[in-house]
Every structure is written in C-alpha cells, then in structure tokens.
C-alpha cells in the first residue's frame, strides 16, 4: 500500500478487526465524525469544488426550454442495434433513414410548426394572465 494512505489499513488482512481499531467511531458516530473532519479539511483549504458534467433534475420546464425542445432534430447517430454483432443492422437502419430523409424532414417540419405555434399561444396566454392579474391587483 502507498505510504501514509489511511485506506490501506487492514487490506489483505483476515477479517475481524484488531485491538487498535477499537477506538474508532461506531456506525452511529461515523457521520458526525465525517462532518467534523470535512469542516476541518475545508478550513485548511481542502476539498476544492469540482466542475464538469453534473446532473440536474428538472421539475418545472420553462417556456424557453420548451421552445428549444419544440424544434425536432432527431440525432441519426442514436439509431443503432442492441443485438450482438448488430453492426450490419445498425448500418441498414441508418441507410433506411437516409432513404426516407425527405419524408422524415416533412414530418418533423410539420410537427415543429405545430409545437412552435402552440408554444406561442401558451406564451401569449401567460402574458394575458399576468396582465389581467396585474389589472385585478390595482
């Protein structure tokens, strides 16, 4: 194990613990110990925030987001076979998409037109409600 590496303690050893371990926290005490250690580490400049890909759940979808989603742009690369040795099937599926691209283009354009107009109506209604509520409040 790496020198000074706390996690290596006990590795490869028969289970059961050792007398030296008896002073460790119980499961009920472990979280409080971790919080205290984290606070101390942060105070000493440890645990810098990390960026990158981060999942964020969405509860309320805003109009701007809906506008973005309303425009249908299917990604052809997601069309694939899940079968073993499915590469020829994937190739066939994508070739089929290519052959039918005119039809699909028409279909997505019509659906996008509907989505966009519907959203414009929703946005106008939202504005109208806001205006009426404001008038009522005066």
């Amino acid at each position, binding site marked *: *194990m*790496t020198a000074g*590496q*706390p*996690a*290596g*303690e*006990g*590795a*490869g*050893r*028969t*289970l*059961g*613990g*050792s007398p030296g*371990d*008896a002073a*460790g*926290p*119980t*499961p009920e005490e*472990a*979280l409080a*110990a*971790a*919080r205290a*250690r*984290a606070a101390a*580490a*942060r105070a000493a400049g*440890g*645990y*810098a925030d*990390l960026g*990158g*890909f*981060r*999942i*964020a*759940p*969405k*509860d309320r*979808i805003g109009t701007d987001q809906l506008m973005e*989603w309303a425009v249908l742009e299917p990604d052809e690369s*997601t069309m*694939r076979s*899940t*079968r*073993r040795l499915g590469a020829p099937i994937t190739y066939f599926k994508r070739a089929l998409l290519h052959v039918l691209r005119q039809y699909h283009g028409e279909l997505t354009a019509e659906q996008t037109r509907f989505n966009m107009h519907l959203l414009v109506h929703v946005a106008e209604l939202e504005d109208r409600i806001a205006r009426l509520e404001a008038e009522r409040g005066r």
Partner: protein
Amino acid sequence: MNVHQVLSGAGPHDAVSNQARAFRALFEEWGWGGADVAAGIDPRVGKAFGPLGALDPASGDTLLLHYSAYAPRLRAVLDRPQRKVLLSHNVTPARWFWDYEPRIAIQCALGRQQLPEYAARCDVVAGVSAFNAAELGSDRVVPILFDPAGLGAPRLSEPAGPPTLLFVGRLAPHKRQDELIRLIALLRDNGVPDARLVLVGEPMKPWYLEELERLGDALAPGAVTFRSGLTVEELAAEYAAAALLVCLSEHEGFCIPLLEAFHVGVPVVARPVGGIPEVADDAALLIADGDLAVVAELCRVVLENAALRGTLRARGAARVEHYARGPVAARLRALLQE
C-alpha cells in the same frame, strides 16, 4: 395453480426481469404452471419471456403484473376477468430524465401517472418495499427474492490492492454516477491518492457512458472503470475486490446491490432515499448531506476503521438473513393464494 407473470419490459440484466425469472423458478418448485410475457422484449433475453399476445390464462389462473415502466399495452390485461395481483417495482420520477432522454422521461411521467389507475383495477396491490407499496396506498410488501448463491460465500479477508469504491446500477441520471466520479476525485486529492472507482451497469444510452467517461478522464484520470454485461462470477469478483459500496442514487425502489454488498461483507455508504433506509436499516452508513466532502470523509472513516467495518459487516449479515429466501417466498405464496 397457474400464475402468469406480465412485465412491461424484459431485458437481460434488469432487476425486474431477474425477479420474474426467480419467481418462475419458485413456482416450478411449488408445482405451479403459467407463462411469463412482456410488452417489450429485448432480443438478448432469449425465450424466457413471450410476447404479450401469447398470454392465454384459464379462468381460475392468477395474473401477476410486475409494474416498473409505462406500458399502455398492459391495459388490455386489466380487462381480463382473472384475479390480478400488481407488484410495484417503482417508476423513477421523470425529473431526472427530461434534460437527458426525453423518451425515457415521457415514459416515466406516464408510468407514474398510470400506476395508481392500474393499482385501482387490480385485486391485490403490493410493493417490493414498503416505500413502493405506500406510494399506492398499500402496506403489502413482497421484497425482492434475493439469491446470493452466485456471489459465492462471504469473503474472509479484506481486499488487497488500492481501495476500490464500487457502485452497481444502471448508468442513468438518477443513479448519480457523476457524483461518484467527483467523489473519487475528491478522495484522491484529499488523503486517498490511489483510490479507484468501479461503476458496474448498463448505460442508459451510449452517449451517456461517453459523457461519464469524459468526466472520469478529466477529474480522476485512470481511476474510474466502467463495466457492463457482467456474468454473475464477474460481478462476484467486483464485490470481492471492493473496499466500499457507495450509492449516491437519488431514487431507488429497493436497491438490490445493498443486499449483495451485505452478503459479500462490503461496507455500504448510501443516500437515504426511497426504499434504501428500510433495506439497509442500521447496516449501512446513510448520508443525506449534499456536500461531497462529508461523503468523502465518511468513506475515509470506514476505510480507516476495521472495527467499524466489522460492525457494519455483522449488521449486513443480519439484513441478508432478514431477506432470506424462505420467508420472502412464503410472503409471495400467501399474496398469490389469498
């Protein structure tokens, strides 16, 4: 007695399909007949499940609906006169998918909307956890039929090599593998420089795996391993080599990996969400803190304390005992025969 199992979808590695297979083996032990069908079948499952159209129950048969995803075609099953038992495996809230997989998000939203209607039209409603059952206003629970045989005997020694954190679960937004990658990076920067992370699970989509791989390469180069499509022996080897199972999922209906870890003797750190608190009870360290520094320090506390690990191991063994095959099978039989 004939029990026909009806699934919304059958796949090669998903928990619900595995559960249906385990139930079928049990039914055969009991001398019961019936067939297993699914509305959607992954070609990799072979012949274990037939298409929904193959469902042909006799008048006295029982239909066991495993509900885990939106499946409009199952509605026709509700119109059948046979006795219907619904077992809810839970449906993940759509909020975790809207930004990443709209199709799955829609299925989740519709699935959660549809579930109460299905429950109302079944004769008996149960969940695989009290959490799942309570969502449908039921207190009937038939837990997962947990069979640890494939994982081998509990391990007798601590794993050698660098400390390895393990998580087993589909690569999907609500399972928060992104947080696990950040966690391993923080651990490596704060006292455990050779910590590794192994993520076992089928990716929701290839692009999602690529996104997580990129994150791993950026934050903890060479320290994150992705594995999928494992045989049970390979999964057992991953558990045997793990120093800790860490589950930062934001939603779990039951969480079988907890029991798998308890069986092998791997300490568990997990978020107390969904069915996790009732499955883990006092055998896991449950942490609701959003601050990953606290999660990292909790992992270090476990890794540094053999006595703590020993206590968790003993409690974990008791949880496995709690979910022993015999009592769970008896609950299932009672549910189906009442």
